[in-house]
């Protein structure tokens, strides 16, 4: 049987030469992400902005969005966003926090439910009060920060400091670009998006670690080789694996996007973006960073990295 190979055998791509392109390219994308984040902002779901989401399904036929919009104007709950949601019979209503604290939200919900009438089945109701949404923002941010710090510690312990710094810069890059992606696509940003971001952080580090592991191994083997050649050699060596794994994860995620339903679609789309960015950054951002950080083969110990590093400063 002839087996499929996506990546050709024994590639010798000069990846490190691309750093003159990839760094400015990533810098532009990162800045664009920040600008997008600051100008457009995120399309925060009610988890973070507070407010109410009601998902409806027309009991017969398709949902009449125009009519629902007209009804919504007389509900006296502020602006109501009426949107189709997957199937033509499905629609979501979303409105912001009501004045008057937590108790006022419930009152608004009953008013809206009464106004919608009998033609629709209420499939989902989510009400997040002002206090809870504030806390969700806090714990979400905290989660992302803590995970980065924790992984930094692990990498510092397992590898040379240059590796840890490179990995963190690559991860931050992925994080920024993911945020920019959310801002640009207007994908709803909610608590599952935090899960997506943390998973992207995990995946990005996973990719980075696989490449770094190989670089370290090569450095112990070829102690005289210039760093950029050595990194090229390592990246080419793990390239088949990188392509293969990115593809299997992509296939799994693609099936989630197509078949997994509306509720987790934004999660799955963000994850797909994440694996592309993470794969790119592990090769084009993290690895060249080691050159800039002045890593040399001679500085990498033969013994486990934590020990045996001292007294081997480069000549």
């Amino acid at each position: 049987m002839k087996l499929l190979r996506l990546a050709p055998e024994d590639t010798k791509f000069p990846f490190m030469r691309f750093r003159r392109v990839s760094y400015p390219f990533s810098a532009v994308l990162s800045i664009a992400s920040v600008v997008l984040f600051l100008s457009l902002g995120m399309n925060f779901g009610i988890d973070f902005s507070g407010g109410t989401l009601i998902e409806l399904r027309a009991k017969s036929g398709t949902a009449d969005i125009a009519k629902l919009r007209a009804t919504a104007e007389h509900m006296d709950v502020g602006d109501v966003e009426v949107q189709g949601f997957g199937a033509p019979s499905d629609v979501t209503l979303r409105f912001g926090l009501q004045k008057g604290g937590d108790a006022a939200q419930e009152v608004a919900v009953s008013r809206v439910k009464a106004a919608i009438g009998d033609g629709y089945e209420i499939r989902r109701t989510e009400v997040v009060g002002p206090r809870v949404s504030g806390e969700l923002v806090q714990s979400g941010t905290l989660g992302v920060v803590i995970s980065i710090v924790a992984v930094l510690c692990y990498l510092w312990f397992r590898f040379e400091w240059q590796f840890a710094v490179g990995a963190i810069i690559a991860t931050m890059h992925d994080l920024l670009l993911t945020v920019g992606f959310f801002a640009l696509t207007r994908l709803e940003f909610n608590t599952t998006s935090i899960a997506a971001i943390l998973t992207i952080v995990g995946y990005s580090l996973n990719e980075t670690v696989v490449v770094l592991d190989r670089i370290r191994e090569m450095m112990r083997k070829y102690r005289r080789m210039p760093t950029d050649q050595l990194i090229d050699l390592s990246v080419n060596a793990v390239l088949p694996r990188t392509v293969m794994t990115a593809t299997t994860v992509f296939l799994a995620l693609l099936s989630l996007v197509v078949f997994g339903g509306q509720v987790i679609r934004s999660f799955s789309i963000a994850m797909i973006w994440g694996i592309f960015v993470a794969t790119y950054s592990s090769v084009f951002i993290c690895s060249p960073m080691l050159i800039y950080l002045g890593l040399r083969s001679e500085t990498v110990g033969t013994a486990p990295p934590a020990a045996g590093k001292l007294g081997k400063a480069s000549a």
Partner: protein
Amino acid sequence: MLRFATWKIVSILAMTAFAVLVIVPSLLSPENREALIAHLPSWVPARAIVLGLDLQGGSHVLLEVDSASVTKSLIDNLRDSVRRTLREEKIAITGGIGVLQRGVQVRIPDAAERARVMPKLKQLAASAASASADGSRVPAFDVTENESGLVQFTVTEAGVSAKIRRAVEQSIEVLRRRVDALGTTEPNIQRQGEDRILVEVPGLQDTGKLKEILGTTAKLEFRLVAEPGADPSETESLDDTERPGAKLPVEKRVMVQGEDLTDAQPGFDSRTQEPIVNFRFNIRGGQRFGEVTSENVGRPFAIVLDGKVISAPRILGPITGGSGQISGRFTVEDANKLAILLRAGALPAKLTIVEERTVGPGLGQDSIDAGKRAAYVGAGLVAFYMLITYGVFGVFANIALAVHIAFIFAGLVLLGATLTLPGIAGIVLTIGMAVDSNVLIYERIREEAHQGRSILSALDAGFNRAFATIVDSNVTMFVAAAILYFLGSGPVRGFAVSLALGILTTIITAVTMTRMMITLWYRYKRPARLPI
């Protein structure tokens, strides 16, 4: 490479069999599951997997004890005791008892009287104390007095937070009785954080009723309607539900409270056929009600529920039987609900709904179907791709993948963890990532073979060299999942659990199990060259 201990093979096969056994009950219909469980010995953990509310449908309601209302009730109670004490001791005060934002004040101009009553007042402040978290008793009020005879009671932070803690505990009991009365299956009611209560009710259709039942304090009071010319500081005007928009002046003093009720049942008035609620007092309540009604024949009294007058009948004669009825403009539904609330008792404080998430059963089922479809298609695609890329080694990886999925489900069942929609997404994601370990190993084997090693030595080197990388890369992923678990809530937590379990099981399935299969394959086949 050729040596693979028999005990390892046996234990891997045993673990796989056990995992399959554990997940079988979840795959059966509820009836078959019951039948199976009845036939199995008790040590077999034959449980169905727990589905999250987003999959089985249901309501998740987060309630918060209103600290302002807790403070107010502390202050009101103190005011009542101060008034009683001053009355009993016949102390003259000027200007009545003032209620402040955070306390009570009273002016006792006469220094001698003040000196006489102060110890008693201080004792009141101390007895309003409540047990704090570490069990020590903290005073709920600070007491100060000044030269001009002004005595001030200020509520303390420790006092309020201890009271909130107690209120949460009592509320959980009350809410449990109320929700049980709705007749739903397995509601989950638990404390969350300092001042919150999480109520999870699976499969309930009418969430409006649930929220009313959760959010109503149901504080019932019997008070006399104030007579014209009564001291205004002793009375207050309450909304009269019988005459919308109108107010009725009633005495602040409470004759009998809802906590003195022993039973409440909905019924119909024998004359008017209106829905009513029949109730019975306990002995203390019955006596007290008997006394008050005999002393006040001819006066109207008000039945007050949560600060609103439901009805204000006239006392026609002493009511000493220890029972009575509440009429109002009830529908049958109202009467039923009020009876449930009165039986379950009043909440010690006002509860506010701060978060609600309700998923209808239709959407839940749709999510299960969508999740299943995504998992089948995802697994199918990955398996096919592995097969066409690695041939017979791909088959090994796919067998390991199947066992991996069985392990995740078995892990969820054994941990009693909840499967949510993001949890399913996590499993689908780990399907894509589980093969990463296989890929790392296979690519390494190819590479080693390429550099001229013999098949056996390439296999050996591939497994050994890839292992360090597999551990490193999985640790980083696991850290992210663990943090997500501790900070996330509800469905997101489900995602973290699936992801973490998936990472742990790949080490067993992708590394050890694949190695076992390749070893056995090599021993049997003795291939001349690698098939990848």
